[in-house]
C-alpha cells in the first residue's frame, strides 16, 4: 500500500531548545521527516522554537513557524494552516506531550486533525506507568516487581515478594527527595517510614532493585501491515542504575546468546503491538539479571528517541525518515534501503564493526551539583566512535570526547605514575561510584592489579567489557616495555593501533613526539584504512559513502574523480555548553553551499546527534574523532583541496595550527589571522591603528605577572584563560581576595596557555556583531543588542535584532568598527565581534571586547532573523566567490524584531545558584519574533519556558543601591498591572518610601514563614532577584535555587526584569500572533522604523 492520498498537509512538531535529554537528535529526525514527507508531495507545516536548527531553515518545510511550543500557540498554527494530520513522534518528548495536550484540549477534534504515527491511546499506554505495567502483564512480560503502599506493614508484605535490596520512592516529593535503596531490613523500615512521612499523600513506591543488572535497548520499527524489524540492539556498558543517556553504550549487543537476543526481539515486538504503536519507531529498554537471565521490561518510548538517532548513525539505517514514510502509509518493503539502493528497508541491519557512545558532562560548570550518575540524565552531549573491535571504538570514543584524553589513559591527563597517582582505596571507592571519571579509574584499578572478578563485583560491568579493557591495558604495557619507538616490533605497533591507541598515547608511552610516531609507523606501512558503514556487513554494495577508520588491509575510500574538488569540513564534536548545535548548523550549511558549487563535501565529525553526521548531508562522511591524527589520516586518503576549520567552534580551530603545519590547505581566514586576533599585543596595535577603544587589559603567564597586571588594570576586572570557549573559568573580581581565588582556577583551566585579565565595564550594554568578509568587502549580517548587561556571558544573555535601545548613530559606529576590523585582519569568511557600549556622560563610548574570526554561536539566529543564509555565503567566500559575485552587497535590515533567549539546565542540577555570570551555562536557545520588541521578548520568554504570570504576587529584591531607583519604577508598573508585591525588609522599605504598597517577608535567617515557605505554598508567581553575592550557600543563592525546584520563574538581572515588565504590559494590550517565516521574508527585507 503506497502513501495515503487523503492527507495533504501535515503538521510536524519540533522539540524546542537544546536541553539535557533532548538535543540535536531531534533536529536530525525532524529534518529527515520534513524531507521524506515533502518528497512524497505532502505540504509540511513545522513548528519549533529553536532557530539553531536545520529544520527551521526556510527550505526545509513548506511553512515554518519559529514560535513558542505551547498547545495554545500550536492551536493558532492549526487554525491558520488547517493541517490534515499531526505527526508527533519525531520531536522528542516535547512533541509527544504537546500532541497529547492538543488532544486533551479538544483542539485536534475541533479542527479535524488526525494524529499519525502513534494514536493518543497508544501514547498514553506507553507513558502511563500503571497502564504500561498492566499491559506488560497481560502479554506475559515481566516488569519491575513492586507497588505503591500506604503503610509500613504493607511495605513489609511486598518485601517478601521482591527481596532486598529494594528501592523506595515517596510519591509527589520534589526532586525525588526521600528516594533510596535499602540493603537490609532495618534500612528498609527506616526508609519506608521516612518516605511515608515525606510524601504529602503518605504513599511510597516499593520496588525490587535492578541496580547492577545488564541494560539493553532495542530499536524497533513497525508498519501498518504489522511488519516489524529490529534496527539495532544496544548494550549498556554501565549496568542499570545509570540513565542510558549517561551510560557508555555499545552497539550491537555484545554479550547475549542468540536465544537471549531472540527472546528480547520477540518481547520487543510484543510490546510495540500491545502498546499499539501502529507505525514508526519505538525504543524498548530491558534489564537482564546477570546470573539468572531474568528479563524485565523497563520502559518503552513510543517515538523516535535519542537512542534511535544513535541506532541510525550506528547502522546507517535512517529511522526517522522511514518512520515518517510509514506514518503516511508506506510499508517497510515498499521503501528502498538508501545505503544499498538495491535492497529494501524491510530488513535488519547487520553490522561488522562495534560502535561505542560515550556521554559528555559539564559538571565543571556546576561545581555545586552532585556528579553521581543516576536515573536522571545529566550529560550535555555525546560522542560516538566506530571500530572493528570494542577496544578500538572505545579508545576512539574517549579521544572523541575532547576532554584532553587521547584514549584509555597514557596521555597528558593520566595520573598513573605521577605523584598524584590514586591509592588503591581511592580506586576502589571511585570505581564503585558511577560518575564521569569512573572510566579512568577502571584502568587505574587494572594497573593496580584488581582482578576482573573484583571489578565486576564493584561495578556490575560485564566481565567481557572488563576483559576488553584489560586487553588494552596489557597492550599498553607491551608497548611501554618495548622502551623505545625503534624497539617496538611491527606486530605490537599494529596491534596497538588496531586496539585504538592514538599516536599521542604511543608517544607518551615511548617518550616520543607524536609526529615522530606518525612518521615511524607510516614508514612501516602502518596506516589507517577506511571501511564503509553499509547496513549489511558487506553483503551488498554500498552506494552511500559513510566511513570509519581502522587499521586493516583493505581501504574502501573512493578515489578522487578527475576535475572534482574536495573540501573537508571539520565539525564540532560532542555537544557541550558553549559549543553545540549552532556550530553543527554552520557545518551543514557548508556542505549545502559546496554542493551548490559542485564541490565534493567531506564531513568529519563524531557527534551522532547531528544533522552533519546524517548520511546524505555531505558527499563523503567520516565518522571520526576530531584530533589532528585522525584528521590527517583521513586527509592522507582523500587529498582535500581545502579544509574548513572556522565553522565547528573551538574544536577545529584548536587543530588548525597542527593541520596547517602538516601541509593541509586551510581555506578562508588564515591560521595566522586566527591567532593574531587571539594575540593581545598584535590586537592592541590593530585597535590603536583603527582608533578603537578596548577595556584596559593584560596577559599573564604566571601568577606573579597576573598580580602585577591586575594592579595596573584595577577592579572590577575579568579573569579568564585563553583558548577556551563558553567562558570556562571566567570570573569577575571585585577585589584582591576574589582575584586570588579565581586566577588560580583560571591557570588550571588554561593548561599552560596564558590567562587574560580585562577591566570589567560595569553597567555597559553588550553588542554582538556577525559579519562576512571576502578579504575586500564586508557585509554586516547582524547587530545584536544584549538584554543582560556586560558581564553575563554572551551565550547566556538574551539578545535582540535589530538593537532595541541603541541609537542609530551608535549602531552605525558599531558596524563601521566591525567592517574596519574585518578588513584590517584580512578575514575571509565569518567574523564575530563583541562590543560594550558604555554611557559616558552624554555620549555612548564603544569598546571592543573581543574579535573571533570564525563562526559564532549566533550565526543561525542571525540567519533566521534576517532571512540571509550567513554560513552558506561565508563558505562560498572561502572557496573564492566574492560577496559581489554572490550578489551580497548590502547589510540586511530585518522588517521585524527577533529576540534570542537562552535556556538553562538548572532543573537537572538541584541546588545550583542560577545567577548569570561570565561563565556560560545555557544549553540551548529559542527565538521570539514579532513586530515589536516587547512581544518578541514575551514570546522568547514563553518559548524558553518562563511563563510570565498575569496575576498574583511578585517578589522583588535588588542588590545594588544604584539599581533601587529603577526597581521603584518597575514596582510601580507592576502594581499598575495589578500584581501584589512582596520583598524583604530593605527593598520593602525603599518601596514603601516611594509610596508603593508591599508586603514584607522574612529573610531566610529570620525564621518562618520566609520566602522559601511562600514558594513551597505556591504564593509567589515571579521573582526578580539580582545578585549581590553568588553561590548556593548564600541566602539569595538558596532562593534562586528554590525557584527552580518549585517552578517559579526567577529573573536575575535588572535589564531582563525591565524587559519582562515591558513584555507583560504588551501582552495586556495585544494578542500573541503567529506568522510563518516564509511570509515574513516574502516581501524581501524592509527597513524598520524604530
Amino acid at each position, binding site marked *: 500500500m503506497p502513501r495515503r492520498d487523503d492527507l495533504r498537509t501535515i503538521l510536524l512538531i519540533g522539540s524546542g531548545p537544546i536541553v539535557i535529554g533532548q538535543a540535536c537528535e531531534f533536529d536530525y529526525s525532524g529534518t529527515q521527516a520534513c524531507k521524506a514527507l515533502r518528497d512524497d508531495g505532502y505540504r509540511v507545516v513545522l513548528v519549533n522554537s529553536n532557530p539553531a536548527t536545520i529544520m527551521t531553515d526556510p527550505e526545509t518545510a513548506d511553512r515554518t513557524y519559529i514560535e513558542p511550543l505551547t498547545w495554545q500557540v500550536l492551536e493558532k498554527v492549526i487554525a491558520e494552516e488547517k493541517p490534515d494530520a499531526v505527526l508527533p513522534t519525531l520531536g522528542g518528548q516535547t512533541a509527544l506531550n504537546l500532541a497529547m495536550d492538543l488532544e486533551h484540549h479538544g483542539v485536534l477534534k475541533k479542527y479535524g486533525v488526525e494524529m499519525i504515527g502513534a494514536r493518543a491511546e497508544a501514547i498514553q499506554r506507553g507513558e502511563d506507568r500503571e497502564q504500561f505495567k498492566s499491559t506488560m502483564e*497481560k*502479554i*506475559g*512480560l515481566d516488569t519491575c516487581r513492586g507497588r505503591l503502599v500506604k503503610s509500613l506493614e504493607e511495605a513489609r508484605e511486598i518485601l517478601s515478594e521482591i527481596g532486598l535490596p529494594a528501592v523506595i520512592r515517596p510519591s509527589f516529593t520534589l526532586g525525588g527527595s526521600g528516594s533510596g535503596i535499602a540493603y537490609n531490613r532495618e534500612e528498609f523500615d527506616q526508609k519506608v517510614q521516612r518516605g511515608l512521612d515525606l510524601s504529602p499523600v503518605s504513599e511510597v513506591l516499593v520496588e525490587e532493585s535492578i541496580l547492577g543488572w545488564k541494560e539493553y535497548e532495542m530499536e524497533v520499527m513497525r508498519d501498518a*501491515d*504489522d*511488519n516489524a*524489524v529490529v534496527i539495532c540492539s544496544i548494550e549498556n556498558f554501565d549496568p542499570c542504575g545509570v540513565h542510558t543517556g549517561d551510560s557508555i553504550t555499545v552497539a*550491537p*549487543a*555484545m*554479550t*547475549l*546468546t*542468540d*536465544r*537471549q*537476543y*531472540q*527472546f528480547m*526481539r*520477540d*518481547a520487543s*515486538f*510484543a510490546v510495540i*503491538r*500491545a502498546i499499539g504503536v501502529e507505525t514508526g519507531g519505538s525504543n524498548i529498554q530491558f534489564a537482564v539479571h*546477570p*546470573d*539468572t*537471565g531474568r528479563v524485565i521490561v523497563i520502559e518503552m518510548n513510543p517515538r523516535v528517541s535519542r537512542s534511535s538517532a544513535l541506532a541510525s548513525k550506528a547502522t546507517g539505517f535512517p529511522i526517522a525518515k522511514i518512520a515518517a514514510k510509514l506514518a503516511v502509509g508506506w510499508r517497510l*518493503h515498499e521503501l528502498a534501503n538508501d545505503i544499498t539502493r538495491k*535492497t*529494501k528497508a*524491510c*530488513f*535488519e*541491519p*547487520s*553490522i*561488522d*564493526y*562495534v560502535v561505542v557512545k560515550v556521554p559528555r558532562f559539564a559538571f565543571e560548570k556546576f561545581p555545586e551539583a552532585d556528579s553521581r550518575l543516576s536515573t536522571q540524565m545529566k550529560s550535555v552531549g555525546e560522542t560516538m566512535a566506530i571500530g*572493528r*573491535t*570494542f577496544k578500538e571504538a572505545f579508545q576512539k570514543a574517549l579521544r572523541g570526547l575532547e576532554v584532553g584524553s587521547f584514549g584509555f589513559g597514557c596521555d597528558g591527563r593520566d595520573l598513573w605514575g605521577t605523584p598524584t597517582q590514586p591509592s588503591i582505596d581511592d580506586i576502589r571507592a571511585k570505581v564503585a561510584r558511577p560518575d564521569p571519571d569512573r572510566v579512568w579509574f577502571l584502568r587505574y584499578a587494572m594497573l593496580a592489579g584488581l582482578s*576482573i572478578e573484583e571489578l565486576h563485583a564493584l561495578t556490575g560491568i560485564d*566481565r*567481557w567489557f572488563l*576483559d576488553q579493557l584489560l586487553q588494552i591495558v596489557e597492550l599498553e604495557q607491551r608497548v611501554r616495555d618495548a622502551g623505545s619507538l625503534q624497539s617496538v616490533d611491527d606486530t605490537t605497533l599494529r596491534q596497538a593501533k588496531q586496539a585504538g591507541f592514538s599516536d599521542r598515547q604511543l608517544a607518551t608511552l615511548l617518550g616520543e613526539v607524536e609526529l615522530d610516531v606518525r612518521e615511524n609507523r607510516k614508514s612501516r606501512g602502518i596506516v589507517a584504512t577506511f*571501511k564503509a558503514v553499509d547496513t*549489511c*556487513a*558487506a*553483503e*551488498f*554494495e554500498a552506494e552511500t559513502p559513510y566511513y570509519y577508520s581502522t587499521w*586493516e*588491509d*583493505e581501504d574502501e575510500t573512493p578515489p578522487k574523480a578527475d576535475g572534482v574538488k574536495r573540501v573537508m569540513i571539520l565539525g564540532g564534536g560532542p555537544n557541550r555548553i558553549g559549543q553545540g548545535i549552532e556550530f553543527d548548523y554552520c557545518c551543514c550549511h557548508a556542505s549545502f553551499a559546496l554542493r551548490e558549487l559542485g564541490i565534493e563535501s567531506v564531513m568529519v565529525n563524531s557527534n551522532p546527534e547531528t544533522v552533519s553526521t546524517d548520511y546524505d548531508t555531505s558527499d563523503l562522511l567520516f565518522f571520526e574523532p576530531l584530533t589532528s591524527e585522525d584528521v590527517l589520516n583521513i586527509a592522507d586518503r582523500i587529498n582535500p583541496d581545502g579544509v574548513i576549520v572556522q565553522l565547528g567552534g573551538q574544536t577545529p580551530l584548536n587543530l588548525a595550527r597542527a593541520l596547517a603545519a602538516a601541509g593541509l590547505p586551510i581555506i578562508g581566514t588564515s591560521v595566522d589571522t586566527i591567532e593574531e586576533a587571539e594575540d593581545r599585543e598584535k590586537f592592541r596595535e590593530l585597535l590603536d591603528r583603527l582608533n578603537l577603544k578596548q577595556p584596559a587589559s593584560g596577559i599573564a603567564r604566571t601568577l606573579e605577572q597576573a598580580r602585577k597586571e591586575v594592579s595596573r588594570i584595577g577592579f572590577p576586572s575579568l579573569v579568564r584563560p585563553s583558548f577556551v570557549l563558553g567562558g570556562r573559568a571566567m570570573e569577575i573580581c571585585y577585589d584582591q581576595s576574589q582575584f586570588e581565588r579565581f586566577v588560580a582556577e583560571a591557570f588550571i583551566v588554561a593548561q599552560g596557555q596564558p590567562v587574560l585579565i580585562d577591566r570589567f565595564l560595569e553597567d555597559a550594554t553588550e553588542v554582538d556583531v556577525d559579519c562576512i568578509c571576502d578579504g575586500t568587502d564586508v557585509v554586516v549580517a547582524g547587530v545584536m543588542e544584549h538584554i543582560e548587561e556586560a558581564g553575563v556571558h554572551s551565550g547566556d544573555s538574551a539578545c535582540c535584532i535589530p538593537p532595541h535601545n541603541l541609537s542609530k548613530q551608535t549602531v552605525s559606529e558599531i558596524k563601521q568598527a566591525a567592517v574596519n576590523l574585518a578588513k584590517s585582519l584580512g578575514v575571509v569568511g565569518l567574523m564575530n565581534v563583541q562590543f560594550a557600549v558604555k554611557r559616558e556622560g552624554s555620549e555612548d563610548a564603544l569598546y571592543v571586547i573581543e574579535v573571533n574570526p570564525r563562526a559564532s554561536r549566533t550565526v543561525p539566529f542571525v540567519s533566521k532573523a534576517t532571512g540571509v543564509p550567513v554560513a552558506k555565503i561565508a563558505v562560498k567566500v572561502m572557496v573564492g566567490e566574492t560577496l559581489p559575485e554572490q550578489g551580497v552587497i548590502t547589510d540586511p535590515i530585518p522588517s521585524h524584531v527577533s529576540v534570542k533567549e537562552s535556556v538553562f539546565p538548572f532543573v537537572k542540577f538541584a541546588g545550583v545558584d542560577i545567577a548569570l555570570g561570565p561563565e556560560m551555562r545555557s544549553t540551548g536557545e529559542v527565538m521570539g519574533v514579532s513586530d515589536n520588541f516587547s512581544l518578541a521578548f514575551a514570546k522568547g520568554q514563553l518559548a524558553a519556558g518562563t511563563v510570565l504570570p498575569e496575576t498574583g504576587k511578585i517578589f522583588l529584591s535588588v542588590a545594588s543601591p544604584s539599581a533601587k531607583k529603577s526597581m521603584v519604577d518597575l514596582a510601580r508598573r507592576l502594581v499598575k498591572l495589578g500584581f501584589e508585591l512582596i520583598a524583604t525588609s530593605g527593598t520593602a522599605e525603599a518601596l514603601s518610601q516611594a509610596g508603593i504598597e508591599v508586603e514584607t517577608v522574612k529573610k531566610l535567617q529570620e525564621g518562618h514563614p520566609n520566602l522559601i515557605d511562600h514558594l513551597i505554598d505556591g504564593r509567589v508567581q515571579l521573582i526578580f532577584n539580582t545578585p549581590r553575592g553568588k553561590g548556593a550557600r548564600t541566602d539569595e543563592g538558596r532562593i534562586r535555587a528554590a525557584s527552580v525546584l518549585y517552578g517559579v520563574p526567577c529573573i536575575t538581572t535588572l535589564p531582563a526584569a525591565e524587559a519582562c515588565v515591558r513584555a507583560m504590559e504588551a501582552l495586556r494590550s495585544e494578542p500573541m500572533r503567529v506568522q510563518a517565516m516564509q511570509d515574513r521574508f516574502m516581501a524581501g527585507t524592509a527597513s524598520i522604523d524604530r
Partner: protein
Amino acid sequence: MAQAALALEDGTFFLGEAFGHRGTVTGEVCFNTSMTGYQEILTDPSYRGQILTMTAPQIGNYGINPQDVESSHLQMAGFVVREASRVASNFTATGTLDDYLKAAGVVGISGIDTRALVRQIRIQGAMTGVVSSEILHEEKLVQMAREAPKLVGRDLVQEVMPSEISQWDEPLASDGTPLRQPTEGGEFLPAPQHTGEKHVVALDYGMKWNIARHLVSQGCKVTVLPGNATANEVLHLKPDGVFLSNGPGDPEVVDYGVSTVRDLVGKVPIFGICLGHQLLAQACGAKTFKLKFGHRGANQPVLDLDTGRVEITSQNHGFAVEEETLPPTLEVTHRNLNDGTIEGIRHKTEAAASVQYHPEAAAGPHDSSPLFLRFREMLN
C-alpha cells in the same frame, strides 16, 4: 601467538592468528552475517565441509553452552573471525569458543581483515580456500586452495546423515525457558502446544535439532530416518506427514532423496526446509542453481505472497531453485526481498510445501515459526 593463514583459489591471502584446532583444512569459503548464534551455526550440519567467516567482528563473547547445539558435533571445516574472545561471559556459558573448536577439531583463524575477505567473496563469488595453522606459505596455500575439491557436484549428505532410524522426543526449550511467541493479536504467550498426536517421519539429510524440537512442540511424534530411506521405508511407518530436512552440499547430486520425495508426493503431506525444499522442487521437475555467494545470515527479508507480510528469516544456502524451471504443478509462495529468488513453493494439487529458509531459527529470528503450525494443520 601462533600464526595461521587463509588462502583462496583466486590468490587472496591473509595471515592471522591460530585458534581452535591446529591443522589444515580446505573447503568452500563463505560468510554469515548473523551477529549472534555462532554456536548454533557451528553445529549446523549444512555447513559440512565449509570454511565459514563471521562478518560480526567479535565472536565468542558469551562462550558456549550445552543448550545451543544443533547437532551431535561441529560440522564445519574451518572458522574465520576478526577476533575470538578469550573469555566467556554469560550465565549460561560452560566454556570458551577456543576450547570448543579445539575439542571438536575445527581449525580457526582470527585477526584477519574479515571484511576484506567478505568483499572479495561478494565480488568474485564463492570460492574454495584453505585455512592452516601448519602451513603459512602463501603460494603453497593458494595452490592447495586451487586443488581442493569444489562444492558443486559433491554429496555431503552422506557424511552427515544418521545411519539408523531413531525417535526424537525433545520439545523446544530444553533449558527450561519456554520459547514464547507473540501471537497474531500481539500477545506474548507460550507457543501453541498440540495435544493430538500426529506421526511425522523426518528424513534427515543433516537435520538441525531445533526442527525436530519444533515438530515435537507441535504435538508430533517424530521418527527420524536416514536421508537415503526409500519411499516404501517411509510409508511403511504409516506417517501422517513427512518432513524433509536441511542438509549440506549440492542438491543436484542427492538423487536418492529426489526419487524418494517423488514417490511420496501425493501420498502423504510433505513439508521441506532448505535442502528439503530443493529436493521437493527437483522431485516435481524443477532444477537448482548455485548462487553467487549464497544467503547466510539472520536478516534475510522474505515476502509471504499469500499474506503480503514480511518475515525476517534465518538462512543458510548456497543453492536455490531456478525460477524458469518451475513446473506448472508448483507455485511460488515466498520470495526473497533482496534478490527476488524463490524462498518457498507449494504443490498446486497435492499437500506439499517447502521453504528455502529456516523457520526453526536457531540461530535467528522466530518470525517464521508459524510455518510449523501450518504443517501441523496440513496433517489434520
